[in-house]
Every structure is written in structure tokens, then in C-alpha cells.
């Protein structure tokens, strides 16, 4: 049986993978506690090597990819960190052959470890631990039992919080006046909330932040690669023809709330994707290279605490990248040499060690917090599990007051219209959500951003 890390919250709940999934009761991070997402991992359709939509021999595809890399100028490399540190490092080497770096779209901020949650007396949280990072909940409960005061700032009431400050897009400035003091801050840092998290990181003591991140190895990837661009900037530059070729390693730009932005991908001269799953992105690519499934790669993974975890499995992805390096006339690379280099780069000597916390947020989003006028808003309350296709919540959350004012009945649909059109969706009634807010855990086709102004008609 292989030790694996679930790409959901990447805390490392201690899964084993064989023909069936099993879990480690003595997993160092999680003591054998489980959430359902990891258990659903093995449902995937594997991507096959392809050129121009046609299946090809892997060696042909590799040489085609390396040819394209040599031909095309202004190539961008993107890897969110859905691969092991070793593969990320190999990818960074590949990018450097054309004088580029790898963009991870998430800054390399490494905060405090979860033990700090347990020892805190005051906690300020900006997440919904029940759905976004469920494995954090246990530690918050522990702290609460020991007398910690939990204050939550979120779009709805969080049950565990002693005090829930309910945010509203129309008064988003509220977060600027929070008195953080010495409180521990639990924050989610992901490609879509950079402005929001930047605002918070800049106004509290950075050593007190437990910084949650999505994807398998966001932390490791962002420490090993230096590219500093947000996913929006990359799409913009493609549109402006500043980027002509794009190589995506297990990274799906379809996470952006506005699907219209993805039309930029059509402007590319060449799109190479290397990923395990077959999906509409691999259908769209000029060249498709296979990869180990996110949870099947062998190597080192850093969880959001900055703790190095070991995963066991295959090294197919690394071999492919190494082959491309070889056919480009560069030095080949192997798992063993990569592994040694990863450890020295991260400054650790063995698995289970923590890397030194990194509090410099070099990465600066261009924009300030957006302002929203009055009216109603649809908020995309994404969870990392959704991005890994392991959550199936196809409904939005609204307040009882809104349901009453729209005269909605059970099993009815909520109709919403934005500048992009209309949608009718199932809904759940949740107390303590503002009446002008609709929370959607899934990306709706009418969304134009994380927060979309809407009308109910």
C-alpha cells in the first residue's frame, strides 16, 4: 500500500492507496480522522498522450512538445502545485531552459502550524471550516474547549464561532477595521482571493496566521518556483499576445469564476497540458502529455503548515519532463537527484520536518479590495474540494427572509440574473445569511467574478 496525500485540503489525513483506499490511524498530522473527500479519490478518466486531438505514441508527443517549446517564443509555465516537489522542481528546470519561470498563482506564504490553533486563546477565522477545510475543525473545537474565543468573519454564521461577524459585499471594508491584536488568524490563500487575503495579511501579525491553501502541494510549489503572476494576469497577457505559448502542469485555469476569460486560451499559438485527468481542458490543448494522478506521484509534498509529507507511487511525470529536457539537448534529471535537491532547497533533512515559515508576501496583487454598490450579490464560496471534482453540492444557500420575500417553496428553484444571463438553481435555507446574498459552493455560468451583482428575476 502506498502512502498518499489527498489533494483536497492537503493537510495530510494519512491515506493509503492500493486497489482500495485505507487510512492511517496513526497519521502524524491527523490521528486517523477522516473526511469523505479523500475516500472518493479514485474516480478519474485518465488523459492519454495526444497531438491535435489525436492519440499518439508517447515518444512522438514528447518530441512534438519539445519542438514546440524550442520554436515558440514567450512561453509561460503554470503549475498550481498539484504535483510533488520533485516534479515541480523538474518543471522549473524545464522552464529555465527557455529562460522562464513557473507561475504557481499562489504566493509562497507559509504560516503557523495547526498546533498553534490548539494553543490559542483568541482566534479570528475567515473560513467556513465545515465545508472548506474540514480537518481544521477538530483543532478549533479543541481550542474552544480550552476556553479560546473564536470570532468568525464570513458570509454566514459559523456555528463554532462565539461571535460571528457576517460580511456583506456592500460593506466589505469592515475587514479593514478588525482589531487583530495577538489573535491567531485562520485564513485561506488561493488563486481567487488574493486581494482579500492580502488585505488581511498586511494588517495582522504575520507570525499568527495559519494559512490554508488548496491543491496537493501549493506550499511546496510556491517555494520552489519564483514566478509571480496571478491567474488573471496570465490570462490577460495571453489576450494581449504577450504570452504565446502555455504549458500547464496539472493546473486548470477553468477555476476562474468568469468562463469568458478562458476564451483567451484560443489566442495561444500553442497550448501544452500535462495532466492525469481527461477533461475539456485536455480536449482543448494542442498537445496532451499524461501525468501521474495527483495523488499517485512519488515524492515530497509540503502541506499548508509547511510540513514535509512523504507520498509513495510512480514517477511517470518526472520521466516525461526529463525526456523533454533530453530532447531539448539539456541535462536529464532523475527522481533521486531531484529529491536531494528539493530537500536542500527547502532546508530540511527528512520527512515530517517543517520548513522555516515564510512571511514575506513578495507577491502583490495589482488591485485594491473591490467595492460593491448596494443590491444583491452572488458569492462563489469555492472549496478546494470542488476544484478537485470531489464535491457534489449543486445548490446555493439563501436566508429564510429571502426565500419568504421571493415566495419560494421547498424543491423550488431560485432564479437569478446577472449581466451574463440567467440561471435557476436549487437552494438551501440557512439562517444568518444576509438577505441580499446568495452563497454558491459551485461556479455558476452567470458569475463574472467571485462576487457577482445579481437581481432576482
Amino acid at each position: 500500500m502506498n502512502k498518499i496525500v489527498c489533494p483536497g485540503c492537503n493537510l495530510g489525513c494519512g491515506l493509503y492507496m492500493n486497489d482500495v483506499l485505507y487510512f492511517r490511524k496513526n497519521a502524524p498530522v491527523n490521528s486517523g480522522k477522516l473526511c469523505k473527500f479523500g475516500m472518493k479519490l479514485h474516480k478519474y478518466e485518465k488523459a492519454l498522450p495526444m497531438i491535435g486531438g489525436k492519440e499518439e505514441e508517447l515518444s512522438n508527443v514528447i518530441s512534438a512538445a519539445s519542438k514546440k517549446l524550442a520554436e515558440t517564443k514567450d512561453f509561460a509555465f503554470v503549475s498550481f502545485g498539484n504535483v510533488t516537489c520533485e516534479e515541480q522542481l523538474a518543471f522549473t528546470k524545464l522552464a529555465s531552459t527557455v529562460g522562464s519561470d513557473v507561475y504557481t498563482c499562489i504566493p509562497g506564504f507559509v504560516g503557523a502550524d495547526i498546533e498553534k490553533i490548539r494553543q490559542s486563546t483568541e482566534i479570528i477565522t475567515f473560513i467556513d471550516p465545515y465545508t472548506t477545510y474540514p480537518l481544521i475543525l477538530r483543532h478549533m473545537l479543541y481550542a474552544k474547549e480550552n476556553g479560546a474565543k473564536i470570532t468568525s468573519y464570513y458570509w454566514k454564521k459559523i456555528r463554532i464561532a462565539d461571535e460571528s461577524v457576517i460580511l456583506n459585499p456592500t460593506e466589505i471594508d469592515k475587514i479593514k477595521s478588525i482589531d487583530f491584536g495577538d489573535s491567531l488568524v485562520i485564513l485561506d490563500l488561493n488563486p481567487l482571493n488574493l486581494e482579500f487575503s492580502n488585505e488581511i495579511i498586511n494588517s495582522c501579525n504575520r507570525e499568527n496566521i495559519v494559512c490554508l491553501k488548496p491543491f496537493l502541494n501549493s506550499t511546496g510549489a510556491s517555494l520552489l518556483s519564483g514566478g509571480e503572476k496571478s491567474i488573471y494576469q496570465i490570462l490577460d497577457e495571453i489576450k494581449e499576445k504577450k504570452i504565446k505559448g502555455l504549458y500547464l502542469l496539472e493546473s486548470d485555469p477553468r477555476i476562474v469564476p468568469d468562463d469568458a476569460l478562458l476564451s483567451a486560451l484560443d489566442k495561444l499559438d500553442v497550448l501544452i497540458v500535462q495532466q492525469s485527468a481527461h477533461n475539456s481542458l485536455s480536449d482543448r490543448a494542442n498537445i496532451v502529455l499524461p501525468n501521474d494522478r495527483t495523488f499517485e506521484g512519488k515524492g515530497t509534498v509540503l502541506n499548508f503548515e509547511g510540513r514535509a509529507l512523504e507520498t509513495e507511487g510512480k514517477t511517470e511525470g518526472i520521466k516525461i519532463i526529463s525526456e523533454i529536457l533530453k530532447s531539448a539537448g539539456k541535462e536529464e534529471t532523475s527522481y533521486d537527484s531531484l529529491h536531494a535537491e528539493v530537500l536542500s532547497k527547502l532546508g530540511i533533512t527528512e520527512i515530517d520536518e517543517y520548513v522555516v515559515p515564510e512571511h514575506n508576501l513578495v507577491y502583490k496583487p495589482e488591485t485594491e479590495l473591490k467595492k460593491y454598490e448596494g443590491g444583491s450579490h452572488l458569492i462563489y464560496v469555492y472549496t478546494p474540494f470542488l476544484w478537485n471534482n470531489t464535491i457534489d453540492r449543486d445548490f446555493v444557500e439563501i436566508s429564510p427572509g429571502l426565500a419568504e420575500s421571493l415566495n419560494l417553496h421547498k424543491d423550488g428553484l431560485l432564479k437569478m440574473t446577472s449581466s451574463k444571463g440567467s440561471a435557476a438553481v436549487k437552494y438551501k435555507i440557512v439562517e444568518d445569511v444576509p438577505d441580499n446574498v446568495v452563497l454558491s459552493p459551485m461556479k455558476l455560468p452567470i458569475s463574472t467574478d467571485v462576487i457577482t451583482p445579481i437581481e432576482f428575476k
Partner: protein
Amino acid sequence: MNIGDRIVAWSKDEEIKKEGASGGLVTSLLTAALKGELVDEVIALQKVSEFEGVPIRTSNVDEVIKCSGSLHAAPINLTKFAVRFFEAHPDGTLALPAKPCDARGIIEQAKRKKINLEKTYLIGLNCGGTMPPITTMKMLEKMYEINPDDVIEEEIERGKLIFKTEKEEKAISIDELEEAGYGRRENCRYCETNIPVMTDVACGNWGAGKNETFVEIFTEKGLKLMNNAIELGLIETAPATEKGIKIREKTNSVMEKVAKKWHKKIFVPIEDRLERFHYYMDVMEDCIDCEACKYVCPVCACDESKCIDFYDPMDSHKISIYHLVRLLHISDSCIGCGQCTDVCPAEIPLTILHRRMADRIQAKYDYIPGMDMKIPPSFEVE
């Protein structure tokens, strides 16, 4: 040898004898069952460390030998692994070591036609309780002042928990450990089934000498298991001594008494109706709808789960129907194995909730689950 016999036995293989607990009998019985073609596969707990075991299903004798040794701090239930075996090989035969809760889970599944008990050889293990691995590691550091990585052997003997390292051996009484919040898992403390009388043979070190195992044979299958191993020359036996039998009985009755005391302490009745209502509301409030408790439950046997049939994450109910249906649905079969509490990421004391309900139902219908195949599941109506 006859059914009902009580003997002591040990492995003839020196290596197994050394690695395995109490003379390595269980490992030898498993290897013998494979070698003598009594079974197609065996399930065993592969030791990763003193605090972790991974259940494996194998027909390879060498792999089984690697699995020897007792793991008190790897509280795993093997029932679902047996269910999976029969899903894959409906006509296959299987042997596995079974603590009382494994055996009871297997019998409940057999009643629901998920396991063919006639083709399952249950090698029972006497059990005084298992320990949660992470807490145990902490306990070693605090109470024993031993580095968990140095432990080479652990054992429970005469109410004391013993840990051995290369250099030393330390014993502390379980009562003392449990006072300090360590020791056995909560559900093991109040478990009254210590000798698995529902299996084919019950093995244990109570009443046995050093490097031997006390065995009681319960069934025809058990007899077959033992004779097979003797014929293959893998084990040796001797009659149990009168003194040994007495010690075993006494240990068992002491354990039962302690369990009853714990039961009383943990299951304090909540007399007030409203208080009960708020207790259930509060305790289930933090559920994150992950269904992990269902995934690990050894007695849960629906093909299409009843508990999620009426449950929709879209509902905004005060108490989750998922849990209520589950409480109802396994109230007759809950064996109190503690897997659901172990796995819950929101720290809901699920085993206690299930036992509260199950105690009522099982007392009402005078039904103890997992003891034998005679009584059908209590839901059955004539």
C-alpha cells in the same frame, strides 16, 4: 482433540515463535490454513510500526509471516475487509484473526448475507482492549518516559500495560493510565466481550505460560484448523493446566466487572426530556456530513444506503436525518466497536450515541448482536 477442549499451543517455527506474540500460534494457524489449502486467502494486519498496522488480504505465506506480533495500538476492524473478499470471491474460503468486535461484526454481516460464515475461519483473539495510537505515543512520552520509536514490544498482563525497549521494561496499571486520560479506547473500557466465544477457536495469553497460547476450541471448523496445523507439523500442543483455566476465567470475570463499572460511569442517563433533546442537538451540531462513520462501520450492510436515502445536504433540518436513520438502522446490530468515534473529524462521540440507542433496543428485544447465527436480526418480523 474435541470441541470444547482447552489446550495450550505454540508455533514450532523458531522465527514465528520469536516474532509473534505468545508463541506465534495465530500466525502459524494462518500459514497452516494456507499451506493445507483450507482457505484461499487470509486477512492479516501488516505491522508498519508498533502503532500502525495495515490490513492486507493475501494468499502468500511469506507475507502472513511478516504480519506476526500483536498490535494493541492499531485499533482496526477487519469486518469490511472480509465483506470485500466475499464480494470478489463469493465461493471463496477465508481465514482471519478476529478480536471479539471483528468476530461480532462478521457474524452480523453473515446474517445479512454479506459473508459466508461457513467458509470463514475465525481465529478468535482474547481482547482486553485496544489503544488509540496517537494518544498512546503521547502516553509513552509522558507516563512511561520512553521514546515511542524505541518500543519493540507491548503487552497487557494482569491489568498492567507493559512496554519493552531494547534496554528496559516498564509496566503501569491500566487503571492509573485511564485515570490520567490515556490507556484503552473509550469503547474498549466498557466492552464486556473479552473472549470471542462466537469464533472457531479463541486464542489468548490468559492462563498460558511464557511463549504459549491458551486455546479453546468452539466449532468443527476450529478443530479442522488445529488438526491441519498439527498435521503439517507447524504447531505443538499440550493440555491446559487446571491453574491456567482458572486464571483465564478469573481474568475474564475481572475484565467484565471493570467494563460494567465503566459502562455505568460513561452512560449516565439523561432523565430530563428537554435536556436530552439539547444534548443530541449540541453533540451533532458539528457534523460536516462527511459520512466517514458509515464508511468504517463494520455492521453497516445496505447495498443502497438507507441512511442517505432520506438525507439531502440541501435540507436545513435541526438534526441530521442521516444520523437519525443510522441510529435507528444499526440500533439492533451495533457492537460498540468504536470505529465511528475514531474516524470522526468533528470529534462527535458517535459510539456513545449509538450505544445509548442500541442499549435501549437491544435490551427491549433481548438481543445481543454478533454472538451467534441463531437469532435473526431483530428487525425481522414473522
